[in-house]
Protein backbone atom coordinates (compact mmCIF):
# COMPACT_ATOMS: atom_id res chain seq x y z
CA UNK A 1 0.00 0.00 0.00
CA UNK A 2 1.42 3.41 -0.92
CA UNK A 3 2.36 5.74 1.91
CA UNK A 4 1.00 8.72 0.02
CA UNK A 5 -1.84 8.32 -2.41
CA UNK A 6 -3.27 11.43 -4.05
CA UNK A 7 -6.13 11.10 -6.53
CA UNK A 8 -7.67 13.89 -8.55
CA UNK A 9 -6.78 16.52 -5.92
CA UNK A 10 -7.95 20.04 -6.69
CA UNK A 11 -7.34 23.05 -4.51
CA UNK A 12 -8.04 26.72 -4.95
CA UNK A 13 -7.30 29.83 -2.92
CA UNK A 14 -9.90 32.52 -2.36
CA UNK A 15 -13.53 32.59 -3.47
CA UNK A 16 -15.61 34.26 -6.16
CA UNK A 17 -13.76 36.60 -8.49
CA UNK A 18 -10.57 36.19 -6.47
CA UNK A 19 -10.64 32.40 -6.81
CA UNK A 20 -7.38 30.96 -7.98
CA UNK A 21 -6.84 27.30 -8.82
CA UNK A 22 -3.53 26.12 -7.44
CA UNK A 23 -3.98 22.38 -7.99
CA UNK A 24 -6.07 20.90 -10.80
CA UNK A 25 -6.60 17.16 -10.45
CA UNK A 26 -3.24 16.00 -9.16
CA UNK A 27 -2.56 12.23 -9.08
CA UNK A 28 0.44 10.94 -7.18
CA UNK A 29 1.50 7.74 -5.44
CA UNK A 30 4.58 7.29 -3.32
CA UNK A 31 5.65 3.94 -1.87
CA UNK A 32 7.27 3.42 1.50
CA UNK A 33 10.95 4.32 1.52
CA UNK A 34 10.85 6.14 -1.80
CA UNK A 35 12.65 9.43 -2.25
CA UNK A 36 10.69 11.61 -4.65
CA UNK A 37 11.65 15.03 -5.90
CA UNK A 38 8.97 17.42 -7.04
CA UNK A 39 10.01 20.31 -9.20
CA UNK A 40 8.36 22.85 -11.41
CA UNK A 41 8.13 26.54 -12.18
CA UNK A 42 7.34 29.11 -9.56
CA UNK A 43 3.65 29.30 -8.75
CA UNK A 44 2.92 25.85 -10.13
CA UNK A 45 1.47 24.62 -6.82
CA UNK A 46 4.33 22.61 -5.29
CA UNK A 47 4.10 24.16 -1.85
CA UNK A 48 0.35 23.90 -1.90
CA UNK A 49 0.53 20.18 -2.64
CA UNK A 50 3.06 19.66 0.13
CA UNK A 51 0.98 21.47 2.73
CA UNK A 52 -2.14 19.50 1.83
CA UNK A 53 -0.30 16.19 2.07
CA UNK A 54 1.24 17.24 5.38
CA UNK A 55 -2.09 18.14 6.93
CA UNK A 56 -1.16 21.80 7.22
CA UNK A 57 -3.92 22.90 4.86
CA UNK A 58 -7.44 21.52 4.63
CA UNK A 59 -8.54 20.44 1.14
CA UNK A 60 -11.99 19.32 0.05
CA UNK A 61 -11.75 18.01 -3.51
CA UNK A 62 -10.48 14.60 -4.55
CA UNK A 63 -8.71 12.11 -2.31
CA UNK A 64 -5.50 12.38 -0.30
CA UNK A 65 -4.59 9.31 1.72
CA UNK A 66 -1.53 9.68 3.89
CA UNK A 67 -0.46 6.72 6.03
CA UNK A 68 -3.93 5.27 5.41
CA UNK A 69 -5.67 8.43 6.66
CA UNK A 70 -8.03 10.33 4.40
CA UNK A 71 -7.06 14.01 4.59
CA UNK A 72 -9.92 15.36 2.48
CA UNK A 73 -12.44 16.90 4.82
CA UNK A 74 -10.47 15.67 7.86
CA UNK A 75 -10.91 17.29 11.28
CA UNK A 76 -8.23 19.61 12.63
CA UNK A 77 -7.44 17.02 15.32
CA UNK A 78 -6.87 14.31 12.66
CA UNK A 79 -4.50 16.60 10.82
CA UNK A 80 -2.64 17.49 14.05
CA UNK A 81 -2.26 13.80 14.81
CA UNK A 82 -0.96 13.09 11.31
CA UNK A 83 1.69 15.82 11.62
CA UNK A 84 3.24 13.88 14.46
CA UNK A 85 4.17 11.18 11.92
CA UNK A 86 5.63 13.63 9.46
CA UNK A 87 8.91 15.51 9.60
CA UNK A 88 8.93 18.92 7.96
CA UNK A 89 11.96 20.69 6.62
CA UNK A 90 11.36 24.28 5.61
CA UNK A 91 13.24 26.60 3.34
CA UNK A 92 14.12 28.63 6.44
CA UNK A 93 15.41 26.56 9.31
CA UNK A 94 12.55 27.72 11.59
CA UNK A 95 14.33 26.79 14.77
CA UNK A 96 13.17 28.22 18.08
CA UNK A 97 15.70 30.92 18.73
CA UNK A 98 15.51 30.74 22.51
CA UNK A 99 16.46 27.05 22.50
CA UNK A 100 19.80 25.33 21.98
CA UNK A 101 20.28 22.82 19.14
CA UNK A 102 19.68 19.99 21.55
CA UNK A 103 16.54 21.57 22.98
CA UNK A 104 15.26 22.32 19.49
CA UNK A 105 15.66 18.70 18.42
CA UNK A 106 14.07 17.56 21.69
CA UNK A 107 10.95 19.60 20.84
CA UNK A 108 10.11 16.96 18.21
CA UNK A 109 10.43 14.25 20.88
CA UNK A 110 8.49 15.91 23.68
CA UNK A 111 5.26 15.03 21.93
CA UNK A 112 6.08 11.34 22.19
CA UNK A 113 4.92 9.50 25.27
CA UNK A 114 7.11 7.14 27.22
CA UNK A 115 10.39 9.00 26.85
CA UNK A 116 12.18 10.47 29.82
CA UNK A 117 14.10 13.72 29.64
CA UNK A 118 17.26 11.63 29.65
CA UNK A 119 16.07 9.46 26.75
CA UNK A 120 15.12 12.51 24.73
CA UNK A 121 18.47 14.18 25.20
CA UNK A 122 20.29 10.99 24.34
CA UNK A 123 18.37 10.35 21.14
CA UNK A 124 18.55 14.01 20.11
CA UNK A 125 22.27 14.12 20.85
CA UNK A 126 22.88 11.08 18.68
CA UNK A 127 20.84 12.57 15.87
CA UNK A 128 22.80 15.82 16.02
CA UNK A 129 25.97 13.79 15.98
CA UNK A 130 24.91 12.01 12.81
CA UNK A 131 24.34 15.36 11.08
CA UNK A 132 27.82 16.36 12.19
CA UNK A 133 26.97 18.79 14.95
CA UNK A 134 28.22 17.00 18.05
CA UNK A 135 30.19 20.10 19.02
CA UNK A 136 27.20 22.42 18.76
CA UNK A 137 24.65 20.75 21.03
CA UNK A 138 24.38 23.69 23.41
CA UNK A 139 24.56 26.54 20.91
CA UNK A 140 21.53 28.63 20.15
CA UNK A 141 20.55 29.28 16.49
CA UNK A 142 22.13 32.74 16.31
CA UNK A 143 25.47 31.17 17.15
CA UNK A 144 25.24 28.79 14.18
CA UNK A 145 25.88 29.22 10.46
CA UNK A 146 23.07 28.84 7.93
CA UNK A 147 24.19 25.34 7.00
CA UNK A 148 24.47 24.31 10.63
CA UNK A 149 20.99 25.63 11.36
CA UNK A 150 19.57 23.66 8.45
CA UNK A 151 21.30 20.55 9.78
CA UNK A 152 19.67 21.05 13.16
CA UNK A 153 16.41 21.38 11.30
CA UNK A 154 17.09 18.10 9.47
CA UNK A 155 17.92 16.44 12.78
CA UNK A 156 14.69 17.77 14.27
CA UNK A 157 12.63 16.44 11.36
CA UNK A 158 14.18 12.98 11.60
CA UNK A 159 14.63 12.47 15.31
CA UNK A 160 11.13 11.22 16.05
CA UNK A 161 11.49 8.62 13.28
CA UNK A 162 8.63 9.94 11.16
CA UNK A 163 7.18 7.84 8.37
CA UNK A 164 7.39 10.69 5.92
CA UNK A 165 9.65 13.70 5.44
CA UNK A 166 8.22 16.65 3.56
CA UNK A 167 10.86 19.16 2.56
CA UNK A 168 10.25 22.44 0.73
CA UNK A 169 13.40 23.81 -0.92
CA UNK A 170 15.63 22.85 2.00
CA UNK A 171 18.75 23.90 0.13
CA UNK A 172 17.50 27.21 -1.23
CA UNK A 173 19.20 29.33 1.40
CA UNK A 174 22.47 27.38 1.32
CA UNK A 175 25.49 27.38 -0.93
CA UNK A 176 26.12 24.47 -3.28
CA UNK A 177 28.37 22.46 -1.02
CA UNK A 178 26.22 22.83 2.06
CA UNK A 179 23.14 22.04 0.01
CA UNK A 180 24.65 18.85 -1.35
CA UNK A 181 25.83 17.76 2.07
CA UNK A 182 22.49 18.27 3.70
CA UNK A 183 20.58 16.41 1.04
CA UNK A 184 22.99 13.52 1.28
CA UNK A 185 22.76 13.40 5.06
CA UNK A 186 19.00 13.42 4.68
CA UNK A 187 19.11 10.60 2.19
CA UNK A 188 21.47 8.48 4.28
CA UNK A 189 19.42 8.82 7.44
CA UNK A 190 16.12 8.32 5.62
CA UNK A 191 17.43 5.11 4.09
CA UNK A 192 18.51 3.87 7.54
CA UNK A 193 15.09 4.57 8.98
CA UNK A 194 13.11 3.53 5.90
CA UNK A 195 11.58 6.99 5.71
CA UNK A 196 9.68 8.20 2.68
CA UNK A 197 10.76 11.59 1.36
CA UNK A 198 8.92 14.08 -0.79
CA UNK A 199 11.22 16.96 -1.56
CA UNK A 200 10.33 20.12 -3.47
CA UNK A 201 13.24 21.85 -5.13
CA UNK A 202 14.32 24.14 -7.90
CA UNK A 203 17.82 22.92 -7.46
CA UNK A 204 18.65 20.61 -10.39
CA UNK A 205 21.99 19.74 -8.84
CA UNK A 206 20.31 17.53 -6.27
CA UNK A 207 17.98 15.62 -8.58
CA UNK A 208 20.34 12.64 -8.46
CA UNK A 209 19.49 11.80 -4.83
CA UNK A 210 15.94 10.92 -5.84
CA UNK A 211 14.54 7.57 -6.85
CA UNK A 212 12.04 9.42 -8.98
CA UNK A 213 11.44 13.03 -10.04
CA UNK A 214 8.14 14.63 -10.93
CA UNK A 215 7.35 17.85 -12.72
CA UNK A 216 4.42 19.99 -11.61
CA UNK A 217 3.22 22.63 -14.04
CA UNK A 218 0.29 24.92 -13.49
CA UNK A 219 -1.32 22.66 -10.90
CA UNK A 220 -0.89 19.43 -12.85
CA UNK A 221 1.74 16.71 -12.83
CA UNK A 222 3.08 16.58 -16.36
CA UNK A 223 5.77 13.94 -16.12
CA UNK A 224 9.43 13.94 -15.19
CA UNK A 225 11.82 16.86 -15.52
CA UNK A 226 14.29 16.70 -18.33
Amino acid at each position, binding site marked *: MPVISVKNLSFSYGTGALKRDALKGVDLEIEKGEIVILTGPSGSGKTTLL*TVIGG*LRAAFDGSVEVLGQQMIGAEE*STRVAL*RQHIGFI*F*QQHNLLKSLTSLQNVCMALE*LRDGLSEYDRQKVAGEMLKSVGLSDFLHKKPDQLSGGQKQRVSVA*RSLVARPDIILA*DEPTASLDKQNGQEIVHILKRLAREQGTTILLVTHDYRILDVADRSLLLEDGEITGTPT
Partner: protein
Amino acid sequence: MSPVKAFFLASRLAWRQLTHEKANLFAAMLGVLFACVLVFMQLGFKDSLYASIIKLPVAMEGDLFLMHKQTEAIWRTVSFSRQQLKRAFALPEVEKAVPVYIWMAQWKNPDNKTKRTLQLLGYDPDTKLLKGKDIRENKKRLLMQDTLIFDNLSRPEFGPVEKMLSEQRLFTEINDHKVEVVGTFKIGPSFAADGNAITSALNFLRIFPERLPERIDLGVIYLKPGSNILTAQAFLQRRLDEDLNVMTHDEMIAAEMSYWQDNAPVGFIFGFGVVIGLVVGMVIVYQILFTDITNHLNEYATLKALGYPHYYLTFVVFTASLILAIIGFVPGLILSAALYRLSEGVLYIPMPLGLGKILTIFCLILGMCIISGSIAMKKLKSANPADMF
Protein backbone atom coordinates in the same frame (compact mmCIF):
# COMPACT_ATOMS: atom_id res chain seq x y z
CA MET B 1 0.55 13.68 26.12
CA SER B 2 -0.89 13.88 29.64
CA PRO B 3 -2.05 17.35 30.70
CA VAL B 4 0.43 17.42 33.60
CA LYS B 5 3.34 16.62 31.33
CA ALA B 6 2.11 19.11 28.74
CA PHE B 7 1.83 21.76 31.44
CA PHE B 8 5.32 21.10 32.71
CA LEU B 9 6.90 21.12 29.25
CA ALA B 10 4.93 24.18 28.20
CA SER B 11 5.98 26.12 31.27
CA ARG B 12 9.58 25.14 30.67
CA LEU B 13 9.34 26.42 27.10
CA ALA B 14 7.69 29.62 28.35
CA TRP B 15 10.50 30.07 30.85
CA ARG B 16 13.15 29.53 28.17
CA GLN B 17 11.48 32.00 25.84
CA LEU B 18 11.06 34.62 28.55
CA THR B 19 14.62 34.35 29.81
CA HIS B 20 15.99 34.44 26.27
CA GLU B 21 14.98 38.08 25.96
CA LYS B 22 16.23 39.54 29.21
CA ALA B 23 15.33 43.14 28.40
CA ASN B 24 11.69 42.25 27.70
CA LEU B 25 11.58 40.12 30.79
CA PHE B 26 12.93 42.99 32.86
CA ALA B 27 10.34 45.38 31.43
CA ALA B 28 7.58 42.90 32.21
CA MET B 29 8.92 42.41 35.70
CA LEU B 30 8.89 46.17 36.27
CA GLY B 31 5.31 46.38 35.02
CA VAL B 32 4.09 43.71 37.41
CA LEU B 33 6.21 45.14 40.20
CA PHE B 34 4.68 48.55 39.64
CA ALA B 35 1.16 47.16 39.79
CA CYS B 36 2.10 45.18 42.87
CA VAL B 37 3.50 48.15 44.77
CA LEU B 38 0.55 50.33 43.81
CA VAL B 39 -1.96 47.75 45.03
CA PHE B 40 0.03 47.06 48.19
CA MET B 41 0.23 50.74 49.06
CA GLN B 42 -3.41 51.46 48.31
CA LEU B 43 -4.67 48.48 50.29
CA GLY B 44 -2.14 49.20 53.03
CA PHE B 45 -3.30 52.80 53.39
CA LYS B 46 -6.90 51.73 53.25
CA ASP B 47 -6.52 49.05 55.91
CA SER B 48 -4.52 51.25 58.21
CA LEU B 49 -7.04 54.03 57.68
CA TYR B 50 -9.85 51.73 58.73
CA ALA B 51 -7.84 50.29 61.59
CA SER B 52 -6.90 53.75 62.86
CA ILE B 53 -10.39 55.10 62.45
CA ILE B 54 -12.01 52.51 64.69
CA LYS B 55 -9.33 52.63 67.37
CA LEU B 56 -11.30 55.07 69.49
CA PRO B 57 -14.67 53.30 69.25
CA VAL B 58 -12.97 49.96 69.85
CA ALA B 59 -11.34 51.36 72.97
CA MET B 60 -14.75 52.31 74.32
CA GLU B 61 -16.75 50.12 76.64
CA GLY B 62 -20.50 50.25 76.94
CA ASP B 63 -23.69 48.34 76.16
CA LEU B 64 -25.53 50.86 74.01
CA PHE B 65 -24.38 54.03 72.30
CA LEU B 66 -26.63 56.97 71.47
CA MET B 67 -25.72 59.30 68.64
CA HIS B 68 -27.62 61.78 66.53
CA LYS B 69 -28.80 60.26 63.28
CA GLN B 70 -26.92 62.98 61.40
CA THR B 71 -23.65 62.05 63.09
CA GLU B 72 -21.58 60.53 60.32
CA ALA B 73 -18.44 59.83 62.28
CA ILE B 74 -17.16 60.43 65.78
CA TRP B 75 -14.87 63.26 64.73
CA ARG B 76 -17.79 65.22 63.27
CA THR B 77 -20.74 64.71 65.53
CA VAL B 78 -24.09 66.43 65.58
CA SER B 79 -25.03 67.08 69.20
CA PHE B 80 -28.29 66.09 70.85
CA SER B 81 -30.13 66.88 74.07
CA ARG B 82 -28.80 65.47 77.30
CA GLN B 83 -32.42 64.98 78.37
CA GLN B 84 -32.51 61.90 76.19
CA LEU B 85 -30.19 60.14 78.60
CA LYS B 86 -32.57 60.83 81.47
CA ARG B 87 -35.42 59.43 79.44
CA ALA B 88 -33.44 56.24 78.92
CA PHE B 89 -33.97 55.44 82.60
CA ALA B 90 -37.58 54.67 81.73
CA LEU B 91 -36.11 51.28 81.00
CA PRO B 92 -35.51 49.60 84.36
CA GLU B 93 -32.50 47.66 83.06
CA VAL B 94 -30.53 50.87 82.55
CA GLU B 95 -27.93 51.19 85.28
CA LYS B 96 -26.00 54.19 84.12
CA ALA B 97 -26.04 56.70 81.24
CA VAL B 98 -22.91 58.68 80.56
CA PRO B 99 -22.81 61.86 78.48
CA VAL B 100 -19.72 62.35 76.33
CA TYR B 101 -18.54 65.57 74.68
CA ILE B 102 -16.23 65.32 71.68
CA TRP B 103 -14.77 68.29 69.83
CA MET B 104 -11.71 69.31 67.90
CA ALA B 105 -9.44 71.63 69.90
CA GLN B 106 -6.31 73.69 69.27
CA TRP B 107 -3.42 72.28 71.24
CA LYS B 108 -0.33 74.33 71.89
CA ASN B 109 2.85 72.31 71.63
CA PRO B 110 4.41 72.85 75.10
CA ASP B 111 7.86 72.62 73.59
CA ASN B 112 7.83 74.95 70.56
CA LYS B 113 4.42 76.63 71.13
CA THR B 114 3.02 75.78 67.66
CA LYS B 115 -0.67 74.99 67.50
CA ARG B 116 -2.26 71.90 66.07
CA THR B 117 -5.72 70.38 66.17
CA LEU B 118 -6.47 67.32 68.23
CA GLN B 119 -9.61 65.51 69.29
CA LEU B 120 -10.71 66.22 72.86
CA LEU B 121 -13.04 63.90 74.72
CA GLY B 122 -14.86 65.09 77.79
CA TYR B 123 -16.69 62.66 80.07
CA ASP B 124 -17.01 61.75 83.72
CA PRO B 125 -13.67 60.03 84.37
CA ASP B 126 -15.31 57.96 87.11
CA THR B 127 -16.97 55.82 84.45
CA LYS B 128 -15.36 52.93 82.68
CA LEU B 129 -15.97 54.34 79.20
CA LEU B 130 -12.46 54.02 77.85
CA LYS B 131 -10.54 50.83 78.37
CA GLY B 132 -6.91 50.82 79.37
CA LYS B 133 -5.13 50.83 82.67
CA ASP B 134 -3.38 54.14 81.93
CA ILE B 135 -6.70 55.92 81.49
CA ARG B 136 -8.30 54.48 84.62
CA GLU B 137 -5.29 55.19 86.79
CA ASN B 138 -5.46 58.84 85.87
CA LYS B 139 -9.13 59.38 86.51
CA LYS B 140 -8.71 60.87 90.02
CA ARG B 141 -6.39 63.55 88.70
CA LEU B 142 -8.82 64.44 85.95
CA LEU B 143 -11.35 65.40 88.58
CA MET B 144 -9.25 68.46 89.33
CA GLN B 145 -9.93 71.68 87.52
CA ASP B 146 -8.27 72.32 84.15
CA THR B 147 -6.45 69.04 83.77
CA LEU B 148 -6.27 66.58 80.92
CA ILE B 149 -4.42 63.47 79.87
CA PHE B 150 -2.67 63.27 76.54
CA ASP B 151 -2.51 60.46 73.97
CA ASN B 152 1.09 59.44 73.88
CA LEU B 153 0.75 57.94 70.39
CA SER B 154 -0.36 61.26 68.89
CA ARG B 155 1.78 62.63 66.10
CA PRO B 156 5.13 64.07 67.29
CA GLU B 157 4.11 67.59 66.20
CA PHE B 158 2.17 67.91 69.46
CA GLY B 159 5.41 67.91 71.40
CA PRO B 160 7.47 65.53 73.52
CA VAL B 161 4.77 65.45 76.16
CA GLU B 162 5.76 62.27 77.96
CA LYS B 163 9.38 63.31 78.23
CA MET B 164 8.53 66.77 79.52
CA LEU B 165 6.02 65.28 81.94
CA SER B 166 8.65 63.00 83.41
CA GLU B 167 10.82 66.02 84.17
CA GLN B 168 8.35 68.40 85.81
CA ARG B 169 4.70 69.47 85.98
CA LEU B 170 3.54 70.31 82.49
CA PHE B 171 1.21 73.14 81.59
CA THR B 172 0.05 74.08 78.13
CA GLU B 173 -2.91 75.70 76.40
CA ILE B 174 -5.80 74.11 74.66
CA ASN B 175 -8.07 76.52 72.80
CA ASP B 176 -6.12 79.28 74.60
CA HIS B 177 -7.26 77.86 77.91
CA LYS B 178 -4.53 76.99 80.34
CA VAL B 179 -4.50 73.30 81.36
CA GLU B 180 -2.21 70.94 83.16
CA VAL B 181 -1.24 67.66 81.54
CA VAL B 182 -1.53 65.12 84.35
CA GLY B 183 -0.85 61.89 82.53
CA THR B 184 -0.75 60.01 79.27
CA PHE B 185 -2.61 57.16 77.62
CA LYS B 186 -2.33 55.29 74.32
CA ILE B 187 -4.88 55.23 71.50
CA GLY B 188 -3.09 56.66 68.49
CA PRO B 189 -3.94 59.08 65.68
CA SER B 190 -6.46 58.39 62.98
CA PHE B 191 -6.84 59.90 59.54
CA ALA B 192 -9.32 62.37 61.06
CA ALA B 193 -7.47 63.29 64.22
CA ASP B 194 -3.72 63.67 64.57
CA GLY B 195 -3.93 63.27 68.29
CA ASN B 196 -6.26 62.75 71.25
CA ALA B 197 -6.69 64.11 74.73
CA ILE B 198 -9.17 63.28 77.48
CA THR B 199 -10.57 65.52 80.14
CA SER B 200 -13.56 65.56 82.45
CA ALA B 201 -16.94 66.80 81.28
CA LEU B 202 -16.66 69.83 83.49
CA ASN B 203 -13.20 70.74 82.21
CA PHE B 204 -14.39 70.20 78.68
CA LEU B 205 -17.11 72.80 79.13
CA ARG B 206 -14.57 75.23 80.61
CA ILE B 207 -12.30 74.74 77.61
CA PHE B 208 -15.21 75.26 75.22
CA PRO B 209 -17.30 78.00 76.87
CA GLU B 210 -19.43 78.18 73.73
CA ARG B 211 -20.56 74.59 74.14
CA LEU B 212 -23.87 74.18 75.95
CA PRO B 213 -23.77 71.57 78.71
CA GLU B 214 -27.23 70.60 77.48
CA ARG B 215 -25.97 69.38 74.10
CA ILE B 216 -23.92 66.19 74.13
CA ASP B 217 -22.22 64.29 71.29
CA LEU B 218 -22.43 60.73 72.50
CA GLY B 219 -24.40 58.94 75.15
CA VAL B 220 -23.21 55.65 76.55
CA ILE B 221 -25.60 53.37 78.39
CA TYR B 222 -24.65 50.63 80.82
CA LEU B 223 -27.24 47.99 81.54
CA LYS B 224 -27.64 45.99 84.73
CA PRO B 225 -25.83 42.65 84.60
CA GLY B 226 -27.81 39.96 82.86
CA SER B 227 -29.97 42.35 80.81
CA ASN B 228 -30.67 41.61 77.18
CA ILE B 229 -28.91 44.25 75.10
CA LEU B 230 -31.01 43.74 71.99
CA THR B 231 -34.37 44.09 73.74
CA ALA B 232 -33.07 47.18 75.53
CA GLN B 233 -31.88 48.57 72.22
CA ALA B 234 -35.27 47.99 70.59
CA PHE B 235 -37.03 49.59 73.53
CA LEU B 236 -34.83 52.66 73.59
CA GLN B 237 -34.95 53.09 69.85
CA ARG B 238 -38.75 53.27 70.15
CA ARG B 239 -38.92 55.43 73.26
CA LEU B 240 -36.22 58.00 72.62
CA ASP B 241 -36.28 60.84 70.16
CA GLU B 242 -36.49 59.54 66.63
CA ASP B 243 -33.46 61.66 65.66
CA LEU B 244 -31.31 59.31 67.71
CA ASN B 245 -29.55 56.13 66.75
CA VAL B 246 -29.30 53.50 69.46
CA MET B 247 -26.42 51.22 68.58
CA THR B 248 -24.63 48.29 70.11
CA HIS B 249 -20.86 48.51 70.39
CA ASP B 250 -20.39 46.45 67.23
CA GLU B 251 -22.89 48.56 65.34
CA MET B 252 -21.17 51.76 66.36
CA ILE B 253 -17.81 50.41 65.13
CA ALA B 254 -19.46 49.30 61.89
CA ALA B 255 -21.07 52.72 61.44
CA GLU B 256 -17.72 54.45 61.93
CA MET B 257 -16.19 52.07 59.43
CA SER B 258 -18.94 52.50 56.86
CA TYR B 259 -18.56 56.28 56.97
CA TRP B 260 -15.03 55.88 55.66
CA GLN B 261 -15.86 53.05 53.33
CA ASP B 262 -18.98 54.46 51.73
CA ASN B 263 -19.52 58.13 52.43
CA ALA B 264 -16.06 59.60 52.62
CA PRO B 265 -14.30 59.70 49.26
CA VAL B 266 -11.19 58.09 50.77
CA GLY B 267 -12.66 54.61 50.55
CA PHE B 268 -13.42 55.24 46.92
CA ILE B 269 -10.03 56.77 46.25
CA PHE B 270 -8.17 53.76 47.61
CA GLY B 271 -10.43 51.36 45.74
CA PHE B 272 -9.86 53.40 42.63
CA GLY B 273 -6.09 53.28 43.15
CA VAL B 274 -6.22 49.50 43.39
CA VAL B 275 -8.21 49.23 40.18
CA ILE B 276 -5.90 51.65 38.37
CA GLY B 277 -2.86 49.70 39.53
CA LEU B 278 -4.34 46.45 38.29
CA VAL B 279 -5.47 47.91 34.98
CA VAL B 280 -2.10 49.50 34.29
CA GLY B 281 -0.36 46.25 35.22
CA MET B 282 -2.76 44.34 33.02
CA VAL B 283 -2.10 46.56 30.02
CA ILE B 284 1.66 46.28 30.49
CA VAL B 285 1.59 42.50 30.86
CA TYR B 286 -0.77 42.23 27.90
CA GLN B 287 1.53 44.37 25.77
CA ILE B 288 4.56 42.29 26.71
CA LEU B 289 2.82 38.97 26.09
CA PHE B 290 1.22 40.17 22.87
CA THR B 291 4.51 41.40 21.40
CA ASP B 292 6.13 38.22 22.61
CA ILE B 293 3.57 36.07 20.80
CA THR B 294 3.83 38.23 17.68
CA ASN B 295 7.61 37.89 17.69
CA HIS B 296 7.36 34.15 18.18
CA LEU B 297 4.51 33.57 15.74
CA ASN B 298 6.79 31.68 13.36
CA GLU B 299 7.97 29.50 16.18
CA TYR B 300 4.43 28.73 17.28
CA ALA B 301 3.50 27.90 13.68
CA THR B 302 6.54 25.62 13.53
CA LEU B 303 5.41 23.89 16.72
CA LYS B 304 2.01 23.34 15.15
CA ALA B 305 3.73 21.80 12.11
CA LEU B 306 5.63 19.52 14.46
CA GLY B 307 2.25 18.25 15.63
CA TYR B 308 1.71 20.30 18.78
CA PRO B 309 -1.98 20.87 19.44
CA HIS B 310 -3.29 24.40 19.87
CA TYR B 311 -4.00 23.91 23.56
CA TYR B 312 -0.30 23.27 24.17
CA LEU B 313 0.49 26.73 22.82
CA THR B 314 -2.17 28.27 25.06
CA PHE B 315 -0.42 26.52 27.97
CA VAL B 316 2.81 28.22 26.93
CA VAL B 317 1.22 31.67 27.02
CA PHE B 318 -0.72 30.88 30.19
CA THR B 319 2.36 29.72 32.06
CA ALA B 320 4.29 32.71 30.74
CA SER B 321 1.72 34.94 32.43
CA LEU B 322 2.06 32.94 35.66
CA ILE B 323 5.83 33.33 35.53
CA LEU B 324 5.51 37.08 35.01
CA ALA B 325 3.13 37.27 37.97
CA ILE B 326 5.60 35.50 40.23
CA ILE B 327 8.77 37.26 39.17
CA GLY B 328 7.04 40.62 39.47
CA PHE B 329 5.34 39.83 42.75
CA VAL B 330 8.40 38.79 44.72
CA PRO B 331 10.38 42.04 44.29
CA GLY B 332 7.08 43.93 44.52
CA LEU B 333 6.45 42.39 47.92
CA ILE B 334 9.93 43.23 49.14
CA LEU B 335 9.70 46.82 47.94
CA SER B 336 6.23 47.21 49.43
CA ALA B 337 7.41 45.90 52.79
CA ALA B 338 10.11 48.58 52.79
CA LEU B 339 7.61 51.26 51.80
CA TYR B 340 5.25 50.12 54.56
CA ARG B 341 7.97 50.71 57.15
CA LEU B 342 8.71 54.07 55.58
CA SER B 343 5.03 55.10 55.66
CA GLU B 344 4.67 54.06 59.28
CA GLY B 345 7.49 56.43 60.11
CA VAL B 346 5.75 59.28 58.31
CA LEU B 347 2.13 58.62 59.18
CA TYR B 348 2.46 57.33 62.77
CA ILE B 349 -0.19 54.81 61.90
CA PRO B 350 0.67 51.11 61.94
CA MET B 351 0.67 49.43 58.53
CA PRO B 352 0.74 45.70 59.17
CA LEU B 353 1.75 43.44 56.28
CA GLY B 354 -0.20 40.33 57.18
CA LEU B 355 -0.17 37.01 55.40
CA GLY B 356 -3.81 37.54 54.48
CA LYS B 357 -3.01 40.75 52.67
CA ILE B 358 0.00 39.19 50.91
CA LEU B 359 -2.12 36.29 49.69
CA THR B 360 -4.98 38.55 48.60
CA ILE B 361 -2.67 40.76 46.59
CA PHE B 362 -0.86 37.77 45.10
CA CYS B 363 -4.21 36.47 43.91
CA LEU B 364 -5.07 39.89 42.44
CA ILE B 365 -1.74 40.06 40.60
CA LEU B 366 -2.09 36.47 39.44
CA GLY B 367 -5.60 37.20 38.19
CA MET B 368 -4.34 40.32 36.46
CA CYS B 369 -1.61 38.37 34.63
CA ILE B 370 -3.95 35.51 33.74
CA ILE B 371 -6.50 37.90 32.23
CA SER B 372 -3.75 39.59 30.20
CA GLY B 373 -2.51 36.18 29.09
CA SER B 374 -5.98 35.04 28.08
CA ILE B 375 -6.51 38.12 25.94
CA ALA B 376 -3.04 37.89 24.38
CA MET B 377 -3.67 34.20 23.63
CA LYS B 378 -6.15 35.11 20.90
CA LYS B 379 -3.16 36.14 18.81
CA LEU B 380 -2.07 32.48 18.74
CA LYS B 381 -4.88 31.78 16.26
CA SER B 382 -2.88 33.56 13.58
CA ALA B 383 -0.02 31.09 13.91
CA ASN B 384 -0.65 29.09 10.73
CA PRO B 385 1.79 26.27 9.96
CA ALA B 386 0.86 26.36 6.26
CA ASP B 387 2.42 29.83 6.08
CA MET B 388 5.76 28.41 7.05
CA PHE B 389 6.55 27.19 3.53
